[in-house]
């Protein structure tokens, strides 16, 4: 009972079936080296990575093949050794289903490492270490794929970071990759937390975990008995407790204000898998090359795999025995926020934490979508305390300024509103539509502003040129005396007239 002390319950949320046991019966299986590796350049939030290899190059495992382009970007490494076959547009796991640039590597099966260089951050200092981390390719592995080096600051807007929260909530149903990681690799996690704790000089480190992961909780408790810096916070199983702002509230009772990063209030949050990745990079010099991924749902042999990035998803599905009931639909991410993949001919990416082979009831979308009856169940379920019924009403009728007035951009698209809606309205779809519509409109506005500026600049330039020309003419006129000038003009005119007359005559003759 004491564990539940100081739980700051946020508004709403839902308690759906978790379906986590499906994929936790088996241990994490290390998936072998595929024949072909397809590495999309778009695997993170921010700018595309810049390729620095050529077709036909031989690359080693862990070799940098694309650099981070600027600060908000992440590097990409070869997950195993082999030859670069091509760089082309191929299907990637993206909700649009559109292809994007990928680097294709034909593996040689030798798995030869580059020279791994462990980093002794104490020796080379904080600044140097962070610079090195930019080339680590590590991004948030909880699914958001935000480049991690940007979060490794000691201060944000003058606020010193004091609290490290380790996000082990994993609130989405079906997903168990973090759970399994904690069960099997707790040592690495604890070492990683200690490393980060010292590296960024935190005052406290808290592991926040939902109370349904009993095994993992046991393991953590045992592991932190002698760790005075690390504490454990068990939070109730309410989706979306794993959302950063919600989890910070559950753990510390602090509501992070709108448009503010938690780090500005001294709190930084990392996902467990990300911490392990950072640990492995600093301790062993291993960049981000693989991740743990849950294969679950309507599948014959559900379990967690550790997979190299770029592995074709199809091969993993085949290894898991294929679908129980064949419907060819796979969902990437959790059932609440994920999206259906256009096909399984896509590679595994850094964002891919879970693949759910769709259960039959997930395909049942022939239930009628009735009008909203304003029952406000969605408002009760909304963890951000928005008014989903109003957002829907205005998104549906495309009154975008009103949608914004009702704080559309605070929506985290968690799907709680759609989950509870008795009319089966795909509310989140409407919000996504409205958001991208507004964003596009803003872009157009910006483009229009630039165009206006350029047009005004051009008009003023033409005006200036006109004046300058007039001035020049006036000057020239002033130089030649008016008499002379008129004479000149007279002569010219005469010459022209004569010429014209000649031409006319010739024309007549020729006719």
């Amino acid at each position, binding site marked *: 009972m004491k564990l539940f002390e100081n739980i700051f319950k946020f508004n709403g949320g839902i308690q759906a079936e978790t379906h986590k046991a499906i994929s936790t019966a088996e241990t994490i299986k290390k998936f072998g080296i595929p024949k072909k590796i397809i590495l999309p350049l*778009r695997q993170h939030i921010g700018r595309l990575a810049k390729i620095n290899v050529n077709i036909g190059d031989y690359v080693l495992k862990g070799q940098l093949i694309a650099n981070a382009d600027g600060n908000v970007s992440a590097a990409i490494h070869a997950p195993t050794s082999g030859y670069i076959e091509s760089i082309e547009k191929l299907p*990637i796991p*993206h*909700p*649009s289903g*559109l292809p*994007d640039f990928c680097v294709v590597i034909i593996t040689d099966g030798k798995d030869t490492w580059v020279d791994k260089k462990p980093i002794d951050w104490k020796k080379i200092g904080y600044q140097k270490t962070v610079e090195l981390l930019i080339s680590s390719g590590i991004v948030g592995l909880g699914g958001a794929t935000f480049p991690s080096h940007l979060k490794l600051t000691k201060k944000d807007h003058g606020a010193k970071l004091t609290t490290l929260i380790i996000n082990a909530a994993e609130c989405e149903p079906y997903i168990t990759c973090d759970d399994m990681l904690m069960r099997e690799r707790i040592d690495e996690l604890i070492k990683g937390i200690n490393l980060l704790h010292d590296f960024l000089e935190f005052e406290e480190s808290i592991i926040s975990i939902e109370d349904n992961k009993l095994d993992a909780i046991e393991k953590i408790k045992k592991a932190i008995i002698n760790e005075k810096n690390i504490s454990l916070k068990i939070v109730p199983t309410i989706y979306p407790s794993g959302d950063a702002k919600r989890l910070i509230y559950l753990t510390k009772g602090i509501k992070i204000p709108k448009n503010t990063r938690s780090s500005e209030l001294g709190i930084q949050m990392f996902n467990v898998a990300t911490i392990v990745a950072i640990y492995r990079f600093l301790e062993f010099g291993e960049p981000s090359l693989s991740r743990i991924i849950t294969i679950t749902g309507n599948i014959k042999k559900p379990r967690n795999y550790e997979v190299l990035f770029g592995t074709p998803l199809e091969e993993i599905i085949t290894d898991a025995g294929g679908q129980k009931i064949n419907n060819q639909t796979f969902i990437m991410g959790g059932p609440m926020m994920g999206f259906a993949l256009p096909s399984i001919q896509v590679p595994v990416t850094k964002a891919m934490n879970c693949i759910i082979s769709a259960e039959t009831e997930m395909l049942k*979308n*022939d239930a*009628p*979508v*009735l*009008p*909203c009856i304003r029952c406000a169940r969605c408002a009760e379920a909304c963890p951000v305390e928005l008014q989903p019924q109003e957002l829907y009403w205005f998104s*549906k009728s495309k009154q975008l300024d009103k949608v914004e007035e009702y704080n559309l951009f605070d929506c985290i698209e968690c799907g709680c509103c759609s989950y509870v809606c008795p009319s089966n309205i*795909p509310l989140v*779809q*409407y919000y*996504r*539509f409205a*958001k*991208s*519509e507004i*964003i*596009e409109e803003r872009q*157009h*506005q910006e*483009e*229009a*502003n*630039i*165009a*206006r500026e*350029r*047009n005004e*600049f*051009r*008009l003023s330039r033409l005006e200036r040129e006109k004046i300058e020309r007039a001035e020049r003419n006036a000057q020239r006129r002033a130089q030649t005396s008016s008499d002379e000038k008129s004479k000149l003009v007279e002569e010219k005119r005469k010459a022209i007239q004569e010429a014209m007359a000649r031409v006319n005559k010739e024309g007549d003759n020729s006719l």
Partner: protein
Amino acid sequence: MLITIGVIIFLSLIIGVALGISAIKFKVDGDPIIEKIDSILPQTQCGQCGYPGCKPYATAIASGEADINQCPPGGDDGIHKLADLLGVDYKPLNEEHGVPKPKSVAIIDEKTCIGCTLCIQACPVDAILGSAKHMHTIIEKECTGCELCLPPCPVDCIDMVPIKETTENWKWKYPVHKLRVDERATP
């Protein structure tokens, strides 16, 4: 009868003086509405509205000279916004001025271009680079898709290419679901 006339004249005098004084006191100049209208217009500067640019069209709307439905690139949304701003009823686009097209940018076929600079002079936003006798290039980001460079080109080397959808500019579509009872158009 006299009294009646007297009363009316007296009233008129008082009111006239009062209004005259306030007219001087509350005199205004300038019209802030033009800026507002201009900010709604898409700034393609294409001239399809019959005015030489977006600002002149905005001025014409503000003075009541032009209607709000003469801007094809602004599309239906633009007309709705203008109607909203000016408190008038929405009216569909006047097709005399053209029809909305998907946003495109001009691309110069650099093999055919003879470097005549005519397009450079036509471009309202200075989005074409090049000098005489050298082939020209369009700065794609700055191109508004106004098509003003097409007619002057003597060798027809400029093409309008619609912008393609990529993962970068992809956006979520308006939801369509089975049995969309709440959005069905009445027949």
